[in-house]
C-alpha cells in the first residue's frame, strides 16, 4: 500500500531523515519507534505531505505521491493524526469532525456512529469548541476526525499521548478492529513499548534520522528494540 523509498528530508541545512525506507500493508499495523528527535514525526510529515522530501520516493497504492500536495494525498485516502493534536481550536467538536467530509462523496458525508462508541466523550461535547477541550479529549477528537475521512492509510503520531489508561486500551482495541476490517493500512508512531508490541505487525526502529532495525514484530528481538529506544 504505502512504500517509502530511501527518502531524505531537510530542515534548512539540517538533515532530519537519511535514506529512510518504510512500507505499510493493508490490514497491518506498521509501528515506528525511536527516541526523541530521531525523526519519527518528520517521517510522518513526509508521508502526509507536510514537509517536502529532498530525495527518494513515496508511493501509495502503486502511484508516486512524492510531489502531491497534502490535500491530494488526503483525497487519495491518507489520514493523519498529528503529534500535538492540532484540532481546529475555534471550530466546535462537531465542525471539527465535519472537516473530514471534504474528500468524501456527498452520500458518505456523515460521522460513523462507531466513532462515538469509541469516544463517548465526544458525543456529549459536540457543541464545545475544540480548543476548549482537555488535552486528552483533543487527542480523541483528532483520531475521530481522521477516521471520518474513511482512509485507506491511517497515520498516527503518538496517538496515546496524554490519554487516560482506559481509553488507551480502547484505542488499542480500535486499532485492532480497524486492522481486522482489512481495508486500511495503519502507520503508528509510539513510545510505549508494550502498547506497540501488542499491536505491531511490522516494526521500524529509528535512530538519528535513520532506520536501524526493522522487520516483522514476531521476528524481532524485543530486548534489542528496547535497547535502541533506551536512553
Amino acid at each position: 500500500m504505502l512504500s517509502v523509498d530511501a527518502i531524505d528530508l531537510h530542515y534548512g541545512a539540517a538533515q532530519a531523515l537519511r535514506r529512510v525506507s518504510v512500507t505499510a500493508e493493508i490490514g497491518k499495523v506498521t509501528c515506528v519507534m525511536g527516541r526523541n528527535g530521531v525523526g519519527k514525526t518528520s517521517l510522518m510529515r513526509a508521508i502526509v505531505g507536510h514537509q517536502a522530501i529532498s530525495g527518494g520516493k513515496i508511493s501509495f497504492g502503486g502511484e508516486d505521491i512524492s510531489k502531491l500536495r497534502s490535500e491530494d494525498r488526503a483525497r487519495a485516502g491518507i489520514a493523519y493524526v498529528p503529534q500535538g493534536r492540532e484540532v481546529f481550536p475555534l471550530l466546535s467538536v462537531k465542525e471539527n469532525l465535519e472537516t473530514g467530509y471534504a474528500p468524501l462523496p456527498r452520500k458518505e458525508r456523515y460521522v460513523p456512529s462507531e466513532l462515538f462508541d469509541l469516544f463517548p466523550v465526544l458525543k456529549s461535547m459536540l457543541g464545545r469548541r475544540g480548543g476548549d477541550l482537555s488535552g486528552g479529549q483533543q487527542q480523541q477528537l483528532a483520531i475521530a476526525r481522521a477516521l471520518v475521512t474513511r482512509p485507506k492509510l491511517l497515520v498516527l503520531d503518538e496517538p496515546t499521548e496524554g490519554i487516560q489508561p482506559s481509553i488507551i486500551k480502547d484505542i488499542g482495541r480500535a486499532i485492532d478492529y480497524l486492522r481486522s476490517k482489512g481495508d486500511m493500512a495503519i502507520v503508528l508512531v509510539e513510545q510505549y513499548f508494550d502498547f506497540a508490541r501488542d499491536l505491531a505487525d511490522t516494526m521500524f526502529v529509528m535512530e538519528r534520522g535513520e532506520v536501524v532495525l526493522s522487520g516483522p514484530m514476531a521476528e524481532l528481538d524485543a530486548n534489542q528494540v528496547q535497547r535502541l529506544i533506551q536512553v
Partner: protein
Amino acid sequence: MIALATLLALQPSAASAQGSPQAADEAFTRLGADSFSDTNRAIEILIANAHPQAAIIIEALADGRLLAGGGAVVVKTKDGKLLDARTGAALASEPPGLGAVRLNNGVRRNIQAALGGLGLLNPDAGKRIAAAEAVFKSRDVSVLPVLETAIGKETDTRAKAALRQAQAAILIAKADAPPFDRLAAVDVLRERGDQDALATLRSLPGDATSALKDAQARAITDIEGKLALWRTAQNLWYGLSLGSVLLLAAIGLAITFGVMGVINMAHGEMVMLGAYTTFIVQEVIRTRFPGLFDYSLAIALPLAFLVAALVGIAIERGVIRFLYGRPLETLLATWGISLILQQAVRTAFGPTNREVGAPAFMSGAFDLGGLAITWNRLWIIVFAALVFGALLAILKLTPIGLQMRAVTQNRRMASAMGIRTGRVDALTFGLGSGVAGLAGVALSQIDNVSPNLGQSYIIDSFMVVVFGGVGNLWGTLVGAMTLGIANKLLEPYAGAVLGKIALLVFIILFIQKRPRGLFAQKGRAVEA
C-alpha cells in the same frame, strides 16, 4: 407678492375676462429683457391681467422652455414645437437670436407661488397637494379666494388637509381675517406639527391679539416638544443609517481580515472598484439604453461583486498566498497593492469625481410620522441587512464556510483533511473582496466616486471589525451599529469634529475594558 385677485379668471371656463393689451405688451418686453427683476415683474403682470396664456408661459418658464430674443417670446412645447407665447399659435420658423429666459431662485420662488395658485384646481389630486404645499410656503394672500373655492370642492381627504393647511398658513398672517378663523388656523398648524408648521406659526405678525398669541405660544411648545422626541428618533435613525454604511464598508474586511487574518489594506480599493463598476454600468446605460437607468444598480450589483471578487482572487493567488503564516507582511504587500490600484484607477478614469446617479426609487425622502426618511438610506440599510444575512448563512451553513474557517485556523491540518486550501483561500478572499465591491455600489450613492474613495473607509472599517471582535461577524454588525449610533447621538452635542474625537477616545477606553473587542472570543480555544 403676486396679486392673484382674478385668478379664477384663469380657469378655462372663465376665460372671457381679458386684461389690458398694454400690460401684456409690457410683460412680454420684460420677459425679453434678460433681467431677473423684469422677469419677476412680467410674471406678476401676466397673472394680474389673467393673460389667457399665463399658465402655459409660466410653466414653460419654470422648465426653461420659454425663449426670448429679438422682441419675440416663444414657448417651446415639451415635444419641441414652437408656439408664439402671446397667442399660442404655432410658429412656422424659429425667430433668430432666441435664448432661454434665465431663472434665479427669486424667480423660481415666484413661479412656484404662481403655479401653486394655478394648480389648486388641477384635476390630479397629487398636483393639488403639491400646489397646496407651494401656497403653504408662499403664504400668498391673493390665493385665498381660490383656495377657499378649492376646499369647498375638495373630496380627497389628503388634498383637503393640505389645502386647509395652506389656508391656515395664509390666515394666520392675515391681520384682517376673522380672529376666530385665525385661532382655528393655529390649530390646523399645530395639527400639522412639523418644522414648517413651526416656521409658519413663528411668522405670526406682531399685530396679533393676545388670545391668538397665547394659542400660538401653546402650539409652538406643543410642536417643539413633539419635534424634540422625533429628533431623538431621527438621530437614532441616522445612527442606524451610518451604522449600516459602516457595516457595508467593513463586512468584506470582516472576511479578509477577520476570518482570514490578512491585514488587507487594499480593502478600500475593492470598495472603490465596486463604485467604479457602478459608474461604468451607468455610463453604458446612459449612452446605450437610457430606459434601463432605474435598473442600473441592480445590474451593477452582480457585476461589481464579480469585478471585485476577480481582482481579489488575482491578488490572493498572485501575492497573498505566499504570505500565510506571515500576517504582518500582508500589510506591506496589500498596502503596495492599494497604491497600485488607486493609481490605476486614477490613470484610467482621471483623478476627479465621477458621477453616479440615483435611480428614481432611491431619490428623495418621505415622512414617517415625524421622521424624514430618505429613500437611499432606507435602501442601504435594507441592503446591508441582506448582505449580512447572506454572508452569515454562507459562513455558518455551507460546507465552504466551514472549510474557510478550518483553513484559516490551521492551514496545514486543513489540507491534511483533504480540504483544497488553495481554492478555499482564493474563494474566501474573493468573497470578502466581492462583498466590498457590493459595498462600493451602495457607497456610490452617498459618497464621492473617486480614486480616494477606498482610503476614506479603510480606517473606519478596521475600527469596526476590531471593535466588534475579530473573527466574529455578529461583532462586526453590532460594532458598526454601536459606532454609528454613538456617533450620531454625540454629534448634535459635540459637533462633528469633537464628536468624532470623542468616539475615538471611547473606542480606546472601551478596548481597555474588553481587550478583544465587543464579542470577544474567550477561553482556552483562543490561546490555543
